[in-house]
């Protein structure tokens, strides 16, 4: 990601002489700060609106972030490795359009799921091939495919919409596993655990960090950089396909404008979760908490009747503030030392 690097390459990363103890690291970690914010938002919300603490309302609130978070997990790995995928929302549109098209031809639910996942994988493979095969900057490639994928949806659908999904297809987005625990929430939890294991407990996860910190060094230490990056694009495409299935099932209809602007919210979620946009650092638990924070804030605003576009101001401010505040703090600290 050439653009993201910009000038900050000049300064370089500083490595301390001795690592601090795990407890110390936890107490000063981004995740703990974020957890504090999440608790604060929860408390403020429950005071702001009497309807907030109802279990069914809280259950509804989770739909605000589960689908986006599914993509955010894969996006987190991609951003840690130093790439980015801005086409995720358009992959949702294309996958959803493909599923809608299949419904018109009489496809059943299992086939629809296969199509959704397949289109997601194919789009991810296309992005990955362009980035790793030709050595193109991922940001431009995915700005291009962002127009291309959604453009295909517009060509197929125009101003029309696909409806008439089979009734058992509705389970993915509207079904409940137990009481107020929705299928999407369970999927979110399972995926969070799987991705946390993948990133923090496997060789593949280590390789992702190494690539993000030093791609050339990674290559010389025997990591197949291109293959790992290609896999990450595949994974992001696949998770976008999963999100497309959930969202289409929840809405019960497909329009070409489906999930418009989600790429921004997914990236915000990842960055808010403490993943460095320059690559090389961040954790999955951070993304999980960030998902909760964003979901709760959106839901709280919704209960207070704040229009969606005003919430987007807040999300934009959040995105900038989250990155700016630590830098301002660091600058102030550096000034005091000298």
């Amino acid at each position: 990601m050439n653009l993201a690097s910009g000038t900050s390459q000049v300064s370089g990363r500083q490595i301390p002489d001795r690592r601090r103890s795990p407890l110390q690291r936890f107490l000063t970690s981004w995740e703990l700060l974020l957890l504090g914010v999440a608790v604060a938002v929860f408390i403020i919300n429950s005071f702001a609106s009497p309807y907030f603490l109802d279990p069914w309302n809280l259950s509804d609130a989770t739909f605000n972030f589960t689908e986006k978070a599914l993509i955010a997990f894969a996006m987190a790995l991609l951003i840690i490795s130093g790439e980015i995928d801005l086409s995720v929302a358009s992959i949702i549109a294309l996958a959803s359009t493909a599923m809608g098209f299949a419904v018109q031809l009489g496809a059943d639910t299992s086939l629809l799921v296969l199509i959704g996942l397949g289109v997601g994988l194919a789009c991810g493979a296309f992005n990955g091939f362009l980035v790793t095969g030709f050595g193109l900057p991922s940001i431009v490639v995915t700005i291009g495919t962002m127009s291309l994928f959604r453009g295909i949806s517009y060509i197929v659908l125009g101003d029309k919409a696909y409806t008439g999904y089979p009734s058992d297809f509705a389970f993915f987005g509207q079904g409940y596993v137990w009481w107020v625990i929705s299928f999407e929430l369970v999927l979110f939890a399972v995926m969070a655990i799987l991705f946390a294991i993948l990133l923090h407990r496997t060789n593949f996860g280590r390789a992702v960090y190494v690539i993000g910190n030093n791609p050339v060094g990674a290559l010389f230490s025997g990591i197949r950089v291109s293959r790992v990056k290609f896999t990450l694009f595949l994974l992001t495409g696949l998770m976008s396909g999963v999100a497309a299935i959930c969202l289409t099932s929840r809405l019960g209809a497909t329009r070409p404008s489906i999930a418009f602007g989600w790429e921004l919210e997914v990236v915000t979620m990842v960055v808010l979760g403490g993943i460095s946009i320059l690559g090389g650092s961040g954790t999955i638990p951070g993304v999980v908490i960030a998902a909760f924070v964003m979901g709760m804030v959106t839901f709280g605003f919704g209960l207070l009747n704040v229009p969606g576009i005003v919430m987007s101001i807040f999300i934009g401010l959040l995105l900038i503030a989250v990155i700016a505040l630590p830098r301002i703090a660091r600058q102030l600290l550096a000034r005091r030392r000298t």
Partner: protein
Amino acid sequence: MIQSLIKSREGILAAAILALLLVISTRFPAFAAPKNLANVFNDTAPLIILALGQMAVILTRCIDLSVAANLALTGMVVAMLNTAMPDLPVPLILLIAVALGTLMGLVNGLLVWKLDIPPIVVTLGTMTIYRGIIFVISGGEWINAHEMSPAFKAFPREVILGLPVLSWMAILVVIGFIVLVGRSPLGRAFYAVGGNPHAAVYTGINVGRTQCAAFVLSGALAGLTGYLWVARYAVAYVDIAGGFELEVVAACVIGGISIAGGIGSVGGALLGALFLGIVKNALPVVNISPFWQLAISGSAIIIAVAFNATSNRTKGRVILKKAEHAL
């Protein structure tokens, strides 16, 4: 001379545009008539102006995704000013529009310069913030033609020497850029910062300030276009020019401006914008649904960036294999 023209990026693009025009005009001769071409140019003028601003930003290794939101916010503000004070003279409105756009560009630039935040994050953020502010100040209402004063609407359409003012604005900006990029220290600094930031520091160029200047320039042009856009289409609402930032980036990428910074020319950006403008205007003529446009510009970006990468790769000796290219 001719050989270098054939080899150059601009030469190929100009040939592609001519071929495109030729193909269309064999079936629809009216499309290539001078009057229609002038219309196409006028239609493309906002894209040309913004693409040049974007070029300055991309040259310095940044990207400005907030231009369309900047345009829309400036447009809304001047339209609201006009409805509140219909007697405000047009030059003053132009000044306000440019000043407002400059201010928004400055916000982007300062965040990139002083806080060292990656430009894509800054402008993704300000893009949503600026759009949101339009909703807040307008309350989601539209400002329609009948609420604007006649002088306000007439300015971009006024015909001077056979071309509307909007077209002349684009021509002026192009000339201004040729001078700025080719003949001024700031223009050279854009290339130096993008080409090699470390070397630029050692030659005494302030990298952050140069990037900030590029953002300010891009913002000012977005502000100018904001007024021209709203006055020309005689309507202002939250979503005007939605997604236009991608078209602007597409024009630059198609024009051969390297997203890695430091490579690109005014002619390239101009031709890139014209290419997109001609495609856009030709689609209804050749009876293809306008819904194709998004996919076409997406494909054009991908093809252009792949083309850029292969044509730039031959430059210089490869001492160490680049990590991304290996395997």
